[in-house]
């Protein structure tokens, strides 16, 4: 009979960026619950400390790492000091919806700076650590359904997430011989602070939900469990692809 590969992350060291709230925090909590030691990285120390305390209270293992992912030197130093890691949830990201015709350079630079440039160099630093330590690993990049389709007021965000999809495939090809898998998780609108503005009015919310056949946005816990699955031995042959958590948005 086949041996069922588990969804457990026991014995793994995981780094989660953007871990102070929303998807990152829920994923850090779920990964800790699945058995990993989780390093939660973000700028907001108080939120990180609270999340780490919660994980420890639940019997999990975690530590906080105050880090601005756009500071590449700080990223390299922090990864060297706290790594090597077996898993990276490369999640720090921002959005600032604006009509294409009104996008300013600062918005463009900020979104590409965090969503693409910082994601690239965090992944590079963590992957170098995996290779130097002679261990394989898994990198899950946070993409979006907007990494696959377009959306109004999202010319910059969609560009960054399509870039993440492309970067993921190229990293998967290069890192596969080194035993490192690279995938993305692509949520639809999720109930987070980042998406709060999108859900600001009942009409706006209804407009979004009407595009989701399952009839509701995603929860952070559902995205978090998808990350656990993708990091686990159960997904050992999954690399270079995305797993959309979009309730059918992109299917139609």
């Amino acid at each position, binding site marked *: 009979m086949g041996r069922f590969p588990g969804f457990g992350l026991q014995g793994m060291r995981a780094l989660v960026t953007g871990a102070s709230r929303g998807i990152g925090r829920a994923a850090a909590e779920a990964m800790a619950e699945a058995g990993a030691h989780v390093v939660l990285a973000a700028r907001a120390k108080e939120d990180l400390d609270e999340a780490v305390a919660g994980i420890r209270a*639940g019997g999990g293992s975690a530590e906080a790492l105050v880090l601005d992912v756009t500071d590449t030197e700080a990223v390299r130093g922090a990864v060297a000091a706290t790594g090597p890691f077996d898993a990276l949830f490369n999640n720090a990201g921002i959005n600032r919806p604006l009509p294409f015709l009104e996008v300013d350079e600062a918005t463009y630079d900020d979104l590409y700076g965090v969503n693409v440039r910082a994601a690239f160099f965090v992944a590079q630093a963590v992957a170098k650590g995996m290779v130097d330590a002679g261990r394989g690993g898994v990198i899950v990049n946070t993409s979006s359904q907007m990494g696959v389709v377009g959306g109004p007021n999202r010319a910059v965000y969609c560009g960054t997430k399509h870039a993440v999809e492309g970067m993921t495939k190229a990293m998967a090809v290069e890192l*596969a011989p080194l035993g490192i*898998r690279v995938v993305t998780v692509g949520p*639809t609108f999720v109930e987070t602070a980042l998406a709060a503005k999108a859900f600001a009015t009942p009409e706006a919310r209804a407009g979004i939900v009407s595009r989701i*056949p399952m009839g509701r946005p995603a929860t952070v816990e559902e995205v978090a469990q998808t990350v656990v*699955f993708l990091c686990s031995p159960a997904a050992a042959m999954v690399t270079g692809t995305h797993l959309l958590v979009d*309730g*059918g948005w992109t299917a139609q």
Partner: protein
Amino acid sequence: MAVAGSETRFPTTPSFRLDGQKALVTGASKGIGRAIAIAYAEAGADVVLAARSLPEMEATVDGLARKGLKARAFALDVTDREAVRAMVAKHGPFDILLNNAGTNIREPFLEAKDASVDALIDLNIRAAFTVAQAVAQGMVSAGRRGAIVNLSSVNGHVAGINRSVYTATKHALEGLTKAMAAELGPHGIRVNAICPTFIETPLTAGVLSDEAFMARAVRAIPLGRIGQVEDIMGAAVFLAAPASGLISGASLLIDGGMCCL
């Protein structure tokens, strides 16, 4: 909304378990179908195995029973529409369908026979449609939510040499998955596809015993190995479980990076 304040709670982890759920697995006599039937039973589901050949499935059911797991086997030709509908009516309603029965006949496009075209379309598309429709009708009639996992292939995304008919059928299955996800979402039914690369099974034993073919296949997979049924089991459980509660219309490649190249 997970605004400040509500984020201080410790979230409940949606489960990877299938306890209390009833699952139908077609093509369950061997290979991927058999492995996933075992995985579903181990995850707590009550599993109904269906395929044409009963003896192999009975051996699987016996093996599961020895581990204290629930499963039953029924002989079923999924291309027989009336038999499919009667079987689903009698043993359903189901919460989970692994829509797996399928086959391949490798022939160059210029030489593909009418009989091969008809047989592959009949089994890989028409029967998959009928089984999914019958199971989904049962779910809706019973007022229960559910999850349907269609067994597609990397050939649902890219072409394979000497696989023109197979490639066409798997692309059709990808389209069916999206259309079902769009229509069944409002009923609380999720529909997804799993797309494996070459997996060592009885279906692929012939081609993979050809050393030159095997070498080419491994070169085409960045992770550098052929897949095993264990590589599919976890994905099939995940996509059936509450943990994937908002994944629908998705197509999960399990290909070691093959489609990146």
